[in-house]
């Protein structure tokens, strides 16, 4: 090895060490702010800790065994699935429709985009309160408007599917712009030549859309769906503000149920076990997203 090469190797070593040093604060911070609470969550999930009774230091799988037989947990999973599937589908559909529609709008009307983006800026608590007011029959301008024509709009928040519908509407209102933004960016990346060429070849608009546009949009659609789906597992402010999980338990999604068990019924250990289940779901989905991300970036 020449002296120069040796020198360069030394420099590279130093450089890599420099990089590692830059990561140390973040590693420490992640250890303190994330790993410690997560370890706590796992430890609690195997314990018998109760907010009032404390603990008898009995550790085991009893919380997880209890989960298997818990009808309220099963119900919460159904609710979560309904909220996620309906919400994400509505957001992706409306987001795509608006993105495609806005693409056709040119000139000064383009400013109108802001009207579609605005809901995304409203904090979730405010979103929930605004829609709570719109779903309150004595107050809502929607009810007042239809009353003029003698039509009585039913109270949404008093029936199971009505309440689920109400939460999905609020969630969709604030999150469809996210889907819209991503799909708009993806549409801009598609060369109009491709669609033109297909049209010249005699393909109908629908066929062009299915065979040319849609496959090119697929990665964006997949990403939006995954990101929105993960977020929808975390539903909290809307349920808390609009329905408190009711009527009955009909909008008690799993995340909310974990909160109820922990902070209302004081079953901390059981709440932690439910949180572990949710965490493992998030781990699976994020693994898939990280894989997707790695494939496109490398």
């Amino acid at each position: 090895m020449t002296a120069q090469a040796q020198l360069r190797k030394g420099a590279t070593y130093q450089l890599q060490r420099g990089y590692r040093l830059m990561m140390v604060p973040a590693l420490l911070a992640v250890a303190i702010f994330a790993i410690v609470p997560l370890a706590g969550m796992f430890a609690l999930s195997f314990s018998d800790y109760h907010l009032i009774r404390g603990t008898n230091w009995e550790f085991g799988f009893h919380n997880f065994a209890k989960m298997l037989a818990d009808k309220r947990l099963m119900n919460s999973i159904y609710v979560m699935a309904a909220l996620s599937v309906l919400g994400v589908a509505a957001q992706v559909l409306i987001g795509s429709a608006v993105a495609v529609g806005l693409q056709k709008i040119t000139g000064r009307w383009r400013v109108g985009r802001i009207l579609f983006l605005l809901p995304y800026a409203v904090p979730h608590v405010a979103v929930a309160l605004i829609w709570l007011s719109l779903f309150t029959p004595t107050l809502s301008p929607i009810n007042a408007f239809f009353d003029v024509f003698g039509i009585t709009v039913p109270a949404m928040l008093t029936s199971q599917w009505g309440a689920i519908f109400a939460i999905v509407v609020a969630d969709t209102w604030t999150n469809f712009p996210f889907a819209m933004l991503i799909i708009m960016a993806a549409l801009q990346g598609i060369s109009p030549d491709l669609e033109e060429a297909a049209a010249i070849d005699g393909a109908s608009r629908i066929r062009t859309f299915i065979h040319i546009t849609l496959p090119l949009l697929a990665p964006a659609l997949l990403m939006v769906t995954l990101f929105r789906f993960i977020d929808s597992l975390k539903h909290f402010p809307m349920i808390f503000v609009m329905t408190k999980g009711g009527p009955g338990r009909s909008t008690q999604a799993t995340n909310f149920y974990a909160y109820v068990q922990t902070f209302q019924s004081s079953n901390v250990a059981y709440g932690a076990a439910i949180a572990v289940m949710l965490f493992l779901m998030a781990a699976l989905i994020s693994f898939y997203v990280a894989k997707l991300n790695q494939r496109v970036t490398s």
Partner: protein
Amino acid sequence: MIDNSRQFHNRRRFGLAMMITLLVFAALPTVWVLVLSFRAPVAIFEPIWESPTALTLQNFYKITRSDFPAALLNSFITAGLSTTFAMLVGVPAGFALAKARLSGKFIASWVLLLLRMAPPVGFVIPLFLLYANSGLIDTYLGLVFAYMTLTLPLVTWSMWNSFAQVPDELIEAAIMDDASLAKAFFLIALPAARPGAVAAAILAFLVAWNDFFYALIITRSGTTTAPVAVMNFISYDSVDWASIAVASIALTLPILPLMALANRYIVQSLSGAVKG
């Protein structure tokens, strides 16, 4: 040909009708909140077309007399501090992750994503017990710590993406010229990634600003943030809708300019994964 053009017009009309419907859906709640915030309390349950002149500024005045402004200040302090800390720690880490020769980068990206996506209920249960036993409940410090679980993964992940777009040659050339790594970072990489850094800070601030869950559980009256304080306008037997409308506007207005700056970046931060 004639048939074709009629078809074209029908499709246009359908498209326009759809866009207008969706516009009503998007804009109605916003317009409604504005109306509600100006409604005189006596007329609040009347349809607006029955008493269109029953408007007042009283609702805005009333809210300045409540606890809400203090809660807004708490929100600014905690969101600001947790963003600052996350930037101080996360920006260098993002740079190192983008440029270092490392094995285990995939694991790092997975962990960062997972921390960003994990349901907060899992973090909040142990934090609550920890805080209850160490006096951190209802303190700025406790809330800022909790927000770090939201802001730090976000900043690190975004900055990793931003620095990845700065050409390696730029950094290497600087190092070849005998610049230290710190110099290459501060004088070359950071200026090149500045738009990304601004956007990461904005996104982190928004996440903390919007939080409801952490604040609900680990704050009490002393450090309540605005999203939790709004709930005080709902009491057991009545709801102060006008104040809620004003508070919703107050919650949204400060972040509108931030959102306007960041919305392009929201796309970019994902487009690494969407480019396909």
